[in-house]
């Protein structure tokens, strides 16, 4: 027999009160771990989605948050558009020439003529057209580069893979300009398969549907990014839909009536494209190296045509502004729960003191010193706090893997038993257990002061 086994035996003898006190400690710690796990999932989700494979978004001047949310998360209303010729500013002379030859039309000679091309040398610029919906999901008109050049994943090194089919192409003999790739969630929820024809509705979910459909030629594997919730169509086909033709505008921005007319096309397979001067883009995804990116952003923001925002900057700003304070508020609340649990340890052991006075006195009569008795009571509170805390820690971490079916689908983040652990956990969980231990000091002192002569 030693002090530890005496303490263990005392606890196991009072099974129910011990179990209930441990449970309250376990629940408190499990809540804290759960809050840390949830905030970890939010952080990872933000990290994954902000790690989108490009470092700048260029769009019409306005709200940087709206531009980021619309482009990265496919949320919020689309911002205004910018001219396609502005997008061509990111191409070097030979690229601009090729683009002109490919598309055709009247290229207004831009003032700057490929001004930004050297700043994205080695990187890329991908145009996005937004504003339509496929069902409740956003329809994004873009080029095949979206899936050929963009990467995803924590280290931004994963190619987009197709669970079925392939990427859409600029023009196919089978479907003309009207091919689409859909994200995993879109395919699952809309029950789409290869060959399914999808029709975009103009301007809003449930709006007027375009007559021309797109044939699904690829379904993405789940990526855990907002792209799982996107329907991507060939930008060339997108431009040919009704209402997607940019009109001429005067200096005040007024539309010239009858100018927004689509080119005549006899069949779906016609190779006629919307000319450059009738094209607009909603956003341009830019990838370039860090220093050039900063220079590019500064330069674009100085211009009157567009703004450039860093999605990582906007997202981490939001994270710091909203998510982190909420996390700390939740942690404060759950820590209070733990303090209440610690008080319950105190009350539980303290209440047992009155019925254990005789036992304490007997041990003293057998030669136990006051220090022995204090140590036994402290070991009991340590055991309750540590075992309860450990059970809570296990339970808190087990919730993640158990909820993976839902979490992975909703956020793309898979939670393994220890995959979400924050630095705070290293301090908070032992801290809470320490509080539980400290709570044992008061009953231990009561035991220390027990009068042997009166209690025998």
């Amino acid at each position, binding site marked *: *027999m*030693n*002090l530890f086994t*005496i303490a263990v*035996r*005392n606890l*196991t*003898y*009072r099974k129910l009160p011990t179990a209930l006190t441990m449970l309250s400690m376990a629940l408190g710690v499990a809540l804290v771990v759960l809050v840390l796990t949830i905030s970890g999932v939010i952080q990872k989700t933000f990290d994954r989605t902000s790690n989108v494979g490009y470092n700048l978004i260029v769009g019409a001047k306005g709200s940087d948050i709206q531009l980021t949310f619309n482009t990265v998360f496919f949320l919020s209303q689309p911002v205004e558009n910018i001219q396609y010729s502005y997008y061509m500013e990111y191409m070097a002379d030979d690229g601009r020439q090729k683009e002109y030859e490919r598309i055709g039309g009247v290229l207004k000679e831009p003032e700057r003529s490929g001004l930004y091309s050297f700043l994205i040398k080695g990187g890329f610029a991908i145009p996005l057209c937004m504003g339509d919906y496929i069902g409740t999901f956003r329809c994004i008109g873009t080029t095949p580069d979206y899936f050929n050049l963009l990467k995803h994943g924590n280290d931004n090194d994963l190619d987009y893979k197709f669970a079925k089919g392939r990427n859409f192409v600029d023009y196919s003999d089978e479907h003309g300009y009207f091919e689409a790739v859909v994200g995993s969630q879109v395919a699952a929820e809309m029950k789409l398969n290869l060959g399914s024809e999808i029709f975009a509705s103009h301007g809003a979910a449930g709006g007027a549907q375009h007559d021309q459909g797109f044939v699904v030629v690829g379904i993405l594997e789940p990526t855990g990014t907002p792209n799982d919730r996107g329907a991507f169509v060939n930008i060339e086909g997108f431009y040919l839909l009704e209402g997607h033709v940019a009109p001429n505008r005067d200096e005040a921005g007024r539309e010239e009536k009858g100018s927004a007319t689509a080119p005549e096309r006899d069949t779906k397979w016609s190779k006629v494209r919307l000319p450059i001067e009738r094209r607009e883009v909603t956003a341009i995804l830019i990838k370039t190296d860090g220093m050039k990116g900063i220079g590019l952003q500064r330069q674009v923001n100085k211009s009157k045509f567009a703004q450039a925002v860093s999605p990582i900057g906007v997202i981490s700003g939001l994270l710091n502004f909203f998510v982190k304070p909420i996390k700390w508020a939740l942690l404060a609340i759950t820590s209070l729960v733990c303090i209440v649990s610690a008080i319950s340890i105190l009350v539980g052991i303290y209440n047992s003191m009155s019925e254990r006075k*005789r*036992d304490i006195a*007997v*041990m*003293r*009569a*057998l*030669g*136990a*010193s*006051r*220090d*022995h008795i204090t140590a036994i009571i402290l070991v009991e509170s340590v055991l309750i706090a540590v075992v309860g805390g450990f059970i809570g820690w296990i339970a808190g971490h087990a919730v993640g893997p158990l909820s993976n079916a839902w979490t992975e689908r909703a956020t793309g983040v898979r939670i393994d038993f220890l995959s979400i652990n924050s630095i705070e956990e290293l301090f908070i969980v032992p801290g809470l257990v320490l509080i539980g231990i400290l709570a044992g000091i008061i009953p231990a002192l009561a035991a220390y002061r027990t009068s*042997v*002569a009166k209690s*025998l």
Partner: protein
Amino acid sequence: MLEIRNLKKSYAEPGGNKLLILDIPQLDIAQAEQVVLRGESGGGKTTLLHIISGIVSADSGSIRLDGTELTQFSESRRDRIRADKMGYVFQTFNLLPAFTALENVRLGMTFARKKINAERGKELLNKVGLSDRMHYLPSQLSVGQQQRVAVARALANKPRLLLADEPTANVDPANQKRIIDLIKDVCREESVAILMVTHSDEIANQFGRVERLEHINRAFADRIATSEQ
């Protein structure tokens, strides 16, 4: 082995006056001697055992155990002396309900500083006839069996002196003699001195040396004389 000289102890009464409980000029017990201290309730028997064992400190006087003066020691030192050299048998057995018979006996060894073979717990339970009840909880034992466990526990640390406070007061008559014989036999075998307090003539008659409290405790004798007047 145990020498008590001029031992005094008083308690404060509710009115604030001090009531002298013990005033013992002399009491000696030799090694392995078996002594009964007989007296009525309120005579200070239990207080004397508490002071000898160091649970309560005396106001004045001297208690020497094997030549060592105990009254000058700090409480923690007295705890160690009690753990190493004394055994205590209570009137109400006071077995700890969470522990089995064997564990209760081993508790008696836990706080002693000297090395004691862990098998001694089993040997003692064998001696008191409870080898088949070692792993029973106190609630699963009869009253007589519980007191036999208490005797084994008091001897677990190989004490020099066994203090017994009315050990058969709660035991049925059939078991009383058995318990007393057990205590006497085991203590004789292990060369342990006994100081047993009781108010029972029947038990006192089983011991060779019987001290009457009113003879050794002047405070009690004075109280009796005052009440008779």
